[in-house]
């Protein structure tokens, strides 16, 4: 049993991840606090928390980014540790320092590792200098005057990236050298606007790339292990939609190589706690992409195959405990798939949807786990990220996991707010996905096959019938229809 040096943990987040972290906090016998903004009308996290800390700001997101307010209110509420979740301030070294300076334990790595890996250019240079593979590139900082020429020399296809970015934001693919200057200028403006930093770097773009990432866990006593890899190639505009573990398409030797590289990178950076090293894989080679110094959205698929609770491991590491297992003890059983349920209309360029959650019946069954940020009565607004819940399915192999996922998606009922459940079902039903022939451009390539098909006449009749029979106005009007028609019955042409 761990003797925790803190008894109260503030989860500085919201939605599904806040609920998920709180579950583990409480299961370990600790007190769980959570932040709350008025825009969140009803949320599972609020029910699970032992204490709720109200925050406000110019808009909901600004509130969750207000480090000063959060630290001050955390202290007043008696929090002794802070788990930042993902997004928001989770990769903000200043927040990490503020929490520690206020005498609380930050459940995550130290600020130096956050700083190092947060600057994508610095991280890349660090990794390359230690002999790990990085994609051929041109870094602006090396010599701004010759940057455009060096980028041009890489030849197309190219990927322009903001040095201060991350998570896929602000990236542009260039396939025509004639457009290079124009795209660099646009990327610089975006970098300044979104990250306050217009510095860029350019990498050779791997066509039909696969996104392979490795879960890392490191304690404060010098032990670093990996918990196998995940594949996150099903993306749209660099946003992940479906993730899985392990990566069934790669041979074992290559998976071992990638995982060992990830451990080497984390160890070289003196990393502590949970983190993920991301790689791009294509044409038989893999290249370091970036390291995320936080718990990731898709961590449940790793939990499913290893049987570990990553948040529990994070809290134990933060408490100063040694990892209770070594690399040889890390198991991988079966296959897991995670599907992100978004409030988006996939038929209309994934436009965000709003509405009230009238009915929410998540799937249940063998190997099914649902991490939900919504409950019935919740009002979905454009104030926050549109991810509503995650459906995680485990099976003895990839085929069984996908079969269970299909069934779970069909059984999931979410009414009142538009969502991507139908899109997810069609996506995993694609033959290419079933065969594991996936890459980050697949969803864009097959957009026409992923549209909602016209319903069958039988389903349409059923929908009209159910609507009519449940409408008081239509039922009342029925009394006025002359009996003669009822007796005639159908008059088919």
């Amino acid at each position, binding site marked *: 049993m761990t003797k925790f040096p803190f008894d109260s943990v503030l989860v500085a987040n919201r939605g599904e991840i806040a609920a998920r972290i709180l579950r583990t906090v409480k299961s370990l016998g600790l007190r769980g606090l959570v932040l709350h903004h008025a825009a969140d009308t009803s949320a599972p996290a609020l029910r699970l928390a032992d204490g709720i800390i109200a925050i406000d700001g110019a808009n909901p997101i600004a509130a969750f980014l207000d480090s000063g307010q959060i630290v001050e209110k955390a202290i007043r509420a008696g929090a002794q540790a802070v788990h930042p979740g993902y997004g928001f301030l989770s990769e903000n070294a200043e927040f990490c320092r503020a929490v520690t300076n206020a005498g609380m334990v930050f459940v995550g790595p130290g600020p130096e590792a956050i700083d190092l890996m947060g600057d994508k250019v610095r991280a890349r240079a660090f990794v390359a200098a230690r002999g790990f593979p990085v994609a051929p590139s041109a870094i602006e900082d090396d010599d701004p005057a010759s940057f455009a020429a060096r980028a041009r020399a890489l030849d197309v296809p190219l990927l322009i990236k903001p040095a201060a970015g991350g998570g896929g934001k602000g990236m542009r693919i260039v396939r025509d050298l004639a457009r290079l200057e124009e795209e660099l200028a646009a990327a610089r403006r975006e970098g300044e606007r979104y990250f306050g930093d217009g510095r860029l770097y350019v990498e050779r773009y791997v066509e039909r790339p696969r996104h392979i990432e490795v879960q890392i866990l490191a304690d404060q006593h010098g032990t670093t292990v990996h918990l196998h890899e995940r594949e996150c190639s099903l993306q749209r505009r660099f946003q992940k939609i479906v993730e899985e573990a392990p990566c069934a398409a790669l041979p074992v030797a290559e998976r071992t190589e990638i995982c060992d590289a990830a451990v080497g990178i984390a160890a070289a950076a003196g990393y502590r706690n949970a983190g993920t090293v991301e790689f791009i894989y294509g044409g038989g080679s893999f290249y370091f992409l970036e390291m995320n110094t936080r718990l990731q959205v898709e961590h449940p698929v790793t939990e499913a195959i290893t049987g570990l609770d990553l948040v529990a491991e994070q809290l134990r590491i933060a408490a100063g405990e040694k990892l209770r297992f070594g690399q040889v003890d890390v198991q991988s059983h079966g296959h897991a798939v995670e599907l992100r349920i978004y409030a988006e209309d996939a038929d209309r360029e994934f436009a965000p949807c709003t509405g009230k959650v009238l009915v929410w019946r998540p799937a249940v069954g063998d190997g099914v786990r649902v991490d939900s940020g919504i409950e019935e009565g919740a009002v979905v607004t454009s104030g926050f990220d549109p991810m509503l819940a995650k459906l995680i399915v485990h099976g003895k192999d990839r085929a069984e996991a996908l079969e269970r996922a299909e069934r779970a998606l069909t059984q999931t009922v979410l009414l009142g707010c538009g969502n991507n459940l139908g899109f997810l079902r069609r996506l995993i039903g694609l033959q290419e996905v079933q065969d594991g022939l996936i890459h980050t451009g697949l969803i864009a390539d097959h957009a026409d096959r992923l549209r909602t098909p016209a319903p069958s006449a039988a389903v349409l009749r059923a929908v009209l019938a159910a609507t009519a029979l449940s409408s008081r106005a239509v039922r009342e009007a029925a009394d006025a*229809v002359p009996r003669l028609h009822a007796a005639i019955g159908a008059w088919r042409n």
Partner: protein
Amino acid sequence: MRCRGCMPRSVPGVTEMMHLFRIGSALWEVALAGLPEAPLLLLRDEACRVSLETLGGAAAIVQVDGARFAIHLAGTDEQRFIHIEGEVFEIAVLDPLTVHAHKEAGNTGLLARAPMPGCVVACPVGVGAAVRPGDSLVMIESMKLEVAIKAERAGVVQAVHFDVGSTFEKDAVLVTLVAATEGQA
């Protein structure tokens, strides 16, 4: 099964009893008959035996001519959400109150004007479409009330003046028709 197909005009009273259901931009004219013993769903060119059994907790069973579907229902009478076979439908049930084009001297019913300010929710007709009296030209919404603007006379759509989502003032011309020529509609 055709949407807005031919309805035998010789059947008195039925047209006025039809409700308009909107799913996306498709419109369906629907009515019920035979309640409560043998409910019939009446569409423009067919009728089916139907039943709905609610099971509690938003779950229900709907039957159409013997075909059985397990569904979930939510929403209000005016805005119905249905989950069926893994897909979700949102149906707007429109009041049978319909507003015809303004009568004004010289208008001759060729200009369909907005009876009140609002916004366009759906436009089921395109330029060149032939319309008959009573056909819906445009669906508008104003102060939570959704209304169908119907053609007063036969014609061909010459122009649709507002896109879905656009707002307009009272009396704005929403759709312009040209008179049907001999042999049309």
